[in-house]
């Protein structure tokens, strides 16, 4: 019985990682850059919802919409100002600017909102699901997060495979030069990618902060890096992979805390990641990269 409850808490933690990883992997797969600022866009989203719902007292729906709008604008602006000028430079250059943007957002939030922790009110009012006569508890946040994850996953897959913009994204991710020759506006496509990725960050912010309601300027740092791990775990660029990677990450983290050592759970999680990558060098759902001579 206790195994089941560890598993469930692992899945709820993992579902949060998964929803963050979905946005991450999207940008990662198409723009081919490690967007270290993704976690901080989540933090911004968290603050927007907090201000709209708790400080201004408006309904959570307004808060979520505001967060989506703010994050989308922020994501697109950051891409335009900080990443686009480096499109043809070394990929590492963009990585460093992303880190700069991450510092910038964290310190801006620190100045604007102060250092003290804000307690986020969960926007999810769903009652927890009780199983096995109240022995097992699945919180409303978990259920909503998993459902949103699945919806986002299906939505993204359909979007990429069925729409023209989605196909353009695939083309850009496959071969930027060839995509340009095919008449695809690469800049516009990447802007759209960032817009969607950041909107997903806003959704992730709402769910993440509902599940773990302590909001500070550093809120985004750890989930950002965990989402990166989850995305690689599942296979970079693979949308179902991000979902699976995220959930697996949460489950491994919690089971190792429960059964091996709570002190060393970080090390165990990362060790599993390394083993997975050594066996499957492109992640669980990743595609095999063919070598070009």
């Amino acid at each position: 019985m206790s195994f089941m409850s560890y598993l469930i808490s692992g899945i709820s933690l993992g579902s949060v990682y998964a929803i963050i990883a979905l946005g991450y992997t999207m940008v990662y797969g198409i723009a081919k850059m490690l967007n270290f600022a993704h976690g901080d866009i989540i933090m911004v989203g968290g603050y927007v919802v907090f201000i709209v719902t708790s400080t201004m007292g408006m309904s959570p729906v307004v808060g979520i919409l505001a967060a989506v709008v703010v994050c989308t604008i922020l994501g697109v602006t950051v891409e335009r100002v900080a990443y686009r000028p480096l499109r043809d430079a070394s990929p590492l250059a963009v990585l460093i600017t992303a880190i700069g943007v991450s510092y910038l957002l964290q310190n801006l939030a620190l100045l604007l909102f102060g250092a003290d922790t804000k307690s986020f009110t969960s926007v999810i009012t769903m009652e927890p699901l009780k199983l096995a006569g109240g022995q097992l508890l699945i919180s409303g946040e978990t259920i909503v997060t998993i459902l949103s994850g699945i919806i986002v996953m299906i939505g993204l897959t359909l979007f990429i495979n069925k729409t023209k913009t989605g196909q353009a994204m695939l083309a850009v991710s496959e071969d930027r030069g060839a995509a340009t020759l095919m008449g695809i506006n690469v800049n516009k496509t990447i802007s759209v990618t960032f817009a969607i990725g950041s909107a997903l960050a806003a959704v992730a912010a709402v769910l993440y902060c509902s599940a773990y309601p302590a909001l500070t300027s550093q809120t985004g740092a750890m989930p950002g890096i965990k989402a990166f791990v989850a995305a690689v775990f599942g296979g970079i660029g693979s949308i179902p992979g991000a979902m699976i990677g995220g959930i697996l990450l949460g489950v491994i983290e919690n089971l190792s805390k429960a059964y091996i050592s709570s002190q060393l759970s970080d090390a165990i999680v990362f060790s599993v990641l390394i083993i997975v990558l050594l066996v499957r060098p492109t992640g669980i759902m990743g595609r095999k990269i063919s070598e070009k001579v």
Partner: protein
Amino acid sequence: MKMAKAKKNFWQGSGLTYGMVILAYILVEIALKTDHMSSLMEGLLVPLCTYSILAVSLNLVVGISGELSLGHAGFMCVGAFSGALFSKIMKGSIDPTVSLVIAILIGAAVAAVFGILIGIPVLRLRGDYLAIVTLAFGEIIKNIINAIYLGRDVNGFHFSMKSEIELGLGEGGETLIKGAQGITGTPQASTFTIGVILLLITLFIVMNLVNSRTGRAIMAIRDNRIAAESIGLNVTKYKLLAFSVSAALAGVAGVLYAHNLTTLAALPKNFGYNQSIMILVFVVLGGIGNIRGSVIAAVVLTLLPELLRGLNNYRMLIYAIVLIALMLFNSSPKAIEMRERAAEWFKKKRQAKEA
């Protein structure tokens, strides 16, 4: 073509790099002797050497070998802890400077062993996957060190991964490594002179390696692995060589770091992925593959937040903006073009004046 140009500059440049370091050393020593240096600057001298060594050694992996490593701070951490542990055990029984020299050798050796152990499995991976695995190793090292308890009493050494109590130290026992608190009471033996010597040795090792047959093989593998393999180069061997030399040098920097402060703990701030990324920032900003650039970037970016202290709360914000602006100015194709045009314009103007 770009390669050929870089190589020529290397030959012109390696002497210049040493000269630059030595000149800086002399200037600093004069300022120190004549009391013209603020305490802040004086305190920063050793860290500047530490970060320069780290940047140069990471450049060997990222620039010369072409692998993205995000775990450099992990090697620094291993070196720092093994070196500091030695000095702590030996404290009082041998001269601090001798102890530091041995500690540096130990730090380098242990970090190199870790470099080989980690390098063998991970160097099979490519690009971002390699990056994440090195990041993971860095985090594992940090996490494990935070759980290590090591003590010593009359019965010898005691070790535990759980807590200080489990060491069961006898009368007069001493805890050497105390979990999250790490090692305290390391002798402060690092000096600017030692730092500069280590930096020069690092530069010597890296620049000679780069300009040797081995270095050319490493760069050939970076530029075209398959072609290099087909002419019979042992890819794994060369990659591993670069990786472990870089790790050893990071270990040296770690020992220097550990002996500059009396407390050594594995925190996210000093040995976590943030630090690895910070070193990567030095490398990228200084120019990938450009050794001298790494030193300059490390110095400038370490000084920058300290010089911004007058801004109080806005310090880190301005730092972030400067970092982004520098990257854009330095790397974006448009800015490079603009800079070239400006240089051209100046040249013309000067020529016009001369004529």
